[in-house]
């Protein structure tokens, strides 16, 4: 029993760190633009298909999917941002309208993936990320899990450094804090938001590279569940705080794995129950510091 518990916790930590990466891009976009990217899961899937293409058609290591995700985020994100976001923000209820707009976008991405790749699941070779296992505390997990968790930590750390150490990062947080004041300070709000949007998509795509490893395969149609799980994680963590999202991912990962070990059929409940409980008890998230409004 003890071994099972330990295994579930270590597994949950790795899985949760990875899900921190899955959710962090959504957090950034929601925090900065106050729009709900319902197509988030689809961007994760696009990252997975990118890695598949890199590995399958170019014969490269799937990790080359990471720079591809960044490139793709620029190519897709830049025009997409300017096409839809400023217009949304001028509308009566941007949060709610974005929900529908990005639902439509999710449909388009799903359809394009289906038309381009067909409906099949795609997997990536284990050997590309090592193929063996690494043990910690006597608990062996596949190399790919460690690589995914490692890249996730680095990506989230990178985002944190961006937000807390660079001028653009300050500006990004300033927009999250108060958009109007950001304008008044002379920040090019649209440019900074567009960069945040692109970073958000790139992080989603980067997470997608590892989906075939942690989920067995990637295929169109898993976007919805990735999006809703990401929402749960970002709310369990805190809005606008990448470290909080990592923490939210850990809570989700460990919670799910413990549930899976002992009451497997209920494990799906974990993110949603956590979400509902947290928004009711502590709406600012587990990691949010209450800011005093004088």
């Amino acid at each position, binding site marked *: 029993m003890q071994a099972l518990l330990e295994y579930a916790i270590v597994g949950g930590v790795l899985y949760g760190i990875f899900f921190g990466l899955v959710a962090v891009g959504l957090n950034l976009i929601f925090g900065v633009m106050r729009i709900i990217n319902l197509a988030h899961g689809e961007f994760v899937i696009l990252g997975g298909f990118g890695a598949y293409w890199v590995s399958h058609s170019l014969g490269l290591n799937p990790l080359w999917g990471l720079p591809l995700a960044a490139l793709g985020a620029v190519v897709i994100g830049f025009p997409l941002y300017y096409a839809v976001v400023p217009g949304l923000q001028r509308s009566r209820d941007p949060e709610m309208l974005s929900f529908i707009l990005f639902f439509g976008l999710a449909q388009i991405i799903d359809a394009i993936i289906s038309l381009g790749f067909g409906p099949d699941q795609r997997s990536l070779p284990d050997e590309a990320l090592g193929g063996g296992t690494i043990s910690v505390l006597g608990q062996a997990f596949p190399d790919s899990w460690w690589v995914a968790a490692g890249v996730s930590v680095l990506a989230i750390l990178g985002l944190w450094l961006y937000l807390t150490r660079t001028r653009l990062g300050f500006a990004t947080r300033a927009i999250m804090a108060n958009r109007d004041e950001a304008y008044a300070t002379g920040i090019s709000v649209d440019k900074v938001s567009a960069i945040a949007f692109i970073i958000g998509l790139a992080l989603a795509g980067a997470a997608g590279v590892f989906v075939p490893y942690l989920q067995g395969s990637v295929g169109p149609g898993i976007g919805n569940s990735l999006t809703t799980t990401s929402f749960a994680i970002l709310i369990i963590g805190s809005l606008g705080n990448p470290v909080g999202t990592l923490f939210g991912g850990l809570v989700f990962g460990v919670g799910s794995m413990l549930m899976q070990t002992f009451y497997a059929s209920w494990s799906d409940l974990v993110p949603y129950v956590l979400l509902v409980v947290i928004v009711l008890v502590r709406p600012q998230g587990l990691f949010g510091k209450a800011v005093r409004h*004088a």
Partner: protein
Amino acid sequence: MSSEPILTLTNVAKSFGGLQVLSDVNFELKPGEILGLVGPNGSGKTSVINLISGVHQPEAGSIRFDGAEIQRLTPHARVKLGINRSFQVPKCFISMSVRENIEVAAHFSGHNADIPAILDDIGLTGMEATPAASLTANQQKMLDLGRALATGPKLLLVDEIGAGLNPAELTGIADLLKRIAARGISMIVVEHLMEFLNKLTSRVIVLSAGKIIFEGSLEDASHDPEVVTAFFGGAA
């Protein structure tokens, strides 16, 4: 008119996020009386109004209105008892017309309001169908007051109604408030503009940093050293 106070605040206190905004507030208001509530920015004037109208609930102390404790009642229940207020920044129902704004308040309070008379009071006669959103800021202020009157208040809390008005308008509104008071409606008037207040009442309470530092006539207040310091600081 009985001499029993219509409103009594006893040891009322309130804080937000660790910041004490009001402490130990005690005062009474007689039926038909107008009380001025003055104090520098941030001294807690609006908080007093919020506590009496039920927008916030006090942490300590009691608020009695018309002989009953009301500090745990919801705002709408207090409205039905006869407490209403205007807002410093008018909060009209912007998706509705002028008339609807007043009607809705009259309906829900169950008060059989004389809507034409109210429209006349607030100077919006002939604008019944105008959408509240297209009123000027001052007209919105008047509409906010009209909404309060439509519920048939016995106690009216008026929050900085004079701000942004020119002298002629100030005179007009002072006359209106006096007319309202003459109908037996008690009033607490929060105001910056002393001259304006002077037209309405002689009895004022001065708040500073959440405490009552003076209670008496406006004339005396202007000579009270503590009040002068609180108000004019070193700047004047």
